[in-house]
């Protein structure tokens, strides 16, 4: 396409044309003389951000956090974090005259007497769902593409801390309305804490101000929910963003996109507009969800009563996996010397989640210890090009998913018309076998995809055009892939290139654990072709007049 560029709109140029003093210039001068911001602005205002849909996931997390801050502050205007008993006299007829805590009564007040109050509550709760899910998916994106490698390991640690704090923040918020469902959750949480050996009873008495339920837990959870954790989250989010700016965003390999540069749109105006616009979209989606989808209709559950429970009590989904672990754990308790050790509680809800979280947090360090790679990495890796890592992440996901499923073992049992016992026994096995199978399948799959890449590179892609040859055989025409695609998919290390030096055999002649793991890490990787192989294949492709015709019957035996 030839374009008369003289007609190109003035907007699409980046040449600064300002010559006489402008308003912007005047404001900048005024503030720079006082704050000296120009040096920082020069570096950052036109900072480059690369574009890819998967880079938006973190943004969803960020913006839903902002939505939580805004809707949360509104909720505090009416919510009363008190467990003092009151008799409900508000608008909701079914509970009028019922004795309940002020926390619950004020939640009903927000829902039924404050115009838009229900909307705020539902937006707040939906934004919490978005927040936690976006963080998780964002984290998966970072892990699958190896974006957590040097120099970004610390930002990964901050991220995983954000995830665990966000989850706790969600649990404390969920507990505030003091309805029957959330009270049951707090009841269970008290049981969890009490099960911690030696100090558990004291922790519980101190947190609850005495025996469960007492009158202190809601006010204390409130302080944690609106002050302590949001404060820490805010600080960590700021640090996360600062490090992002300092490291500059990672990017996908492609023409002109190398380890040593970053290609994309400048912060001002395009990136700021897209990101800012996206804030309004996240906020708007939360509003639509609050309008259309009912969530946590606390008036249906009634006030908390320690002697009552709703059938099929389920926590918010992100709490589901420790709950599942709790369900399928065998009822092991040890009793000796006048003490009770509740492994059946301590292991599934305290030890297992803490260790899983720790493992996720140290993932970049673990990988680095295995590979010994000391280089910086700014180009993302396609998941298939790190088969062992990808497989390990999928197996962690399977671990999580099996526990999460176990959290619905009663529902699964009714759905499958099976006994809850059988489902529980099956899940006890699947929790361990599932991740192993997932690891194996994913690794083989990645390797197959690497092989496929090579095939496409050397023999072209299947064009879908079938040609009949003079002999009457049918063949599909293969066409070479574009130069830029060929360039992009061949940007990757060859074998253990970049890995550190091997430890070498130990005194007894055996390999160190690290060397063994490193071998496993790189084993079976399919290498990209050599330049010679590539050139030869290109010549061959060009030779076959209309591309490379492969006999269909012959299959792909090359």
């Amino acid at each position, binding site marked *: 396409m030839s374009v008369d560029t003289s007609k190109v709109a003035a907007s699409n140029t980046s040449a600064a044309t300002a010559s006489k003093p402008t308003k912007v210039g005047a404001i900048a001068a005024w503030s720079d003389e006082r704050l000296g911001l120009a040096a920082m602005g020069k570096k950052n205002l036109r900072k480059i951000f690369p574009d890819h849909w998967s880079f938006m996931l973190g943004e969803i997390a960020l913006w839903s956090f902002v939505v939580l801050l805004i809707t949360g502050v509104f909720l505090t205007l009416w919510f009363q974090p008190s467990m003092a008993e009151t008799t409900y006299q508000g608008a909701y*007829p079914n509970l009028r005259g019922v004795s309940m805590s002020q926390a619950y009564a004020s939640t009903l007040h927000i829902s039924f007497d404050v115009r838009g109050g229900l909307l705020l509550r539902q937006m707040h709760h939906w934004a919490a769902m978005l927040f936690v899910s976006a963080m998780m998916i964002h984290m998966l994106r970072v892990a699958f593409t190896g974006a957590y490698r040097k120099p970004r390991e610390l930002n990964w640690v901050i991220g995983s801390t954000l995830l665990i704090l966000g989850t706790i923040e969600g649990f404390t918020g969920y507990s505030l309305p003091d309805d029957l469902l959330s009270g049951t959750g707090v009841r269970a949480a008290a049981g969890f804490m009490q099960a911690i050996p030696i100090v558990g009873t004291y922790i519980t008495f101190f947190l609850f101000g005495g025996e469960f339920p007492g009158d202190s837990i809601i006010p204390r959870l409130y302080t944690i929910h609106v002050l302590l954790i949001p404060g820490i989250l805010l600080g960590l989010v700021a640090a996360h963003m600062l490090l992002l700016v300092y490291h500059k965003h990672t990017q996908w390999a492609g023409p002109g996109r190398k380890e040593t540069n970053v290609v994309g749109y400048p912060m001002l105006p395009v990136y700021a507009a897209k990101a800012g*616009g996206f804030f309004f979209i996240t906020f708007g989606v939360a509003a639509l969800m609050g309008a259309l989808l009912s969530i946590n209709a606390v008036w249906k559950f009634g006030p908390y009563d320690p002697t009552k*429970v709703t059938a099929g009590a389920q926590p918010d989904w992100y709490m589901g996996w420790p709950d599942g672990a709790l369900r399928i*754990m065998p009822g092991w308790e040890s009793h000796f010397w006048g003490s009770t050790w509740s492994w059946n509680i301590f292991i599934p809800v305290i030890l297992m989640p803490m260790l899983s979280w720790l493992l996720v947090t140290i993932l970049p360090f673990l990988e680095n210890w295995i590979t010994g790679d000391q280089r910086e990495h*700014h180009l993302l890796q396609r998941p298939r090009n790190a088969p062992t890592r990808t497989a390990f992440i999928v197996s962690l996901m399977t671990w999580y998913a099996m526990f999460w499923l176990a959290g619905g073992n009663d529902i699964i049992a009714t759905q499958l018309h099976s006994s809850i016992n059988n489902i529980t026994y099956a899940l006890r096995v699947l929790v361990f076998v599932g991740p192993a199978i997932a690891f194996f399948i994913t690794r083989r799959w990645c390797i197959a995809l690497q092989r496929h890449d090579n095939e496409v590179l050397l023999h072209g892609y299947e064009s879908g055009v079938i040609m009949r040859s003079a002999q009457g055989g049918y063949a599909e025409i293969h066409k070479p892939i574009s130069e830029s695609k060929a360039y992009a998919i061949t940007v990757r290390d060859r074998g253990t290139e970049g890995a550190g030096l091997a430890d070498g055999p130990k005194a007894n002649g055996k390999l160190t654990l690290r060397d063994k793991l490193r071998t496993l890490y790189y084993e079976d990787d399919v290498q990209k072709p050599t330049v010679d192989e590539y050139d030869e294949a290109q010549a061959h492709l060009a030779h076959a007049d209309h591309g490379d015709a492969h006999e269909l019957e012959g299959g792909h035996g090359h």
Partner: protein
Amino acid sequence: MSDSHEIQAHTDALLPDPGHPEHHWRPTDVDPRAERRAERQVASLFGLSILCTILFVVFYVTIEGGIGGPTVMGLGASNLALGLSLGGALLFIGIGVIQWARKLMADVELVEERHPASSSEADRSATVAALQAGLEESGIARRPLIRNTLIGSVGLLVAPAVVMLRDLGPLPGDRLRHTVWAKNMRVVRDVVGTPIRPADLEIGDLVNSSAEILFGTDKGQPVPEADVIEGTELQVEKAKAATVLLRMDPDDIVSDATRNWSVSGIVAYSKICTHVGCPISLNERTTHHLLCPCHQSTFDLADSGKVIFGPAGRHLPQLPLGLDDEGFLVALSDYPEPVGPSFWERETKSPGAVFNEWNKENAQ
């Protein structure tokens, strides 16, 4: 590491870099009509947002909220109208801004060089030198007495912070070991507080019950003001005293303890799950099994409340039952062992051992 301050990264490309792809002009760049159309489009989106915001205010004032207000397809009209208009007001801004960026802002991709995350060698040694000089001048290394007492005094400041937490709550003491149940206290229905005679229950009936004192009465008579349990204390005691009564065929009872503590086939157990404390509610009529809805622990009420299935680690405590002179069900004592979820200091024994000990204590 090399002296020149370079980024320690390497793009292992197989093929020569084809270089940055050619920039294509968008219709809005080259066609003034398309440009003006896009401009109008973006402005209209902002206009729509303004309209939605005005609607929000109008809805706020005109539509009655809450439970008495009108509904649309089962949804509260106020919630729906406010949410949709607010959602529209926000979304149209978002879409408008992004449309502006996509259609009208410069779309030339720019390149920026990366720099290593580390500082230059020179900077690093300068910093280390400065740090060294600072430490040197303070003499912190040369004066261990000052250094150690400083570390000690600052470290000890944790103590006030921790000590201050002491008054968060009382010490557990033996509070978890006792409930309000006592010898001859009537077993009453948990909501209304009426006493129960064995004849009130048919075989298979399950009754949620509680201790009479929690209703402020003793044998139907109000207790003295000082003994009334109220407020937070009432919640705490209710949470521990909750009891289920189940009447079964006396011949179905398996264990001696359960038989001895039953009255005409009626047994009483703590309603608080020994797992993490949910109130247990689901009764399987034919089997005398009681199921906890939280994590499906199942207890056999015919056999000392033993765990049949699920994650609970220990049997459900049984309340010894008897009759008073008016023929109402009463407790023969407090629960012989602590009720509810585990705690570390809990002394846990088998149902048989608990029963024997109780017999010894209550023999005199």
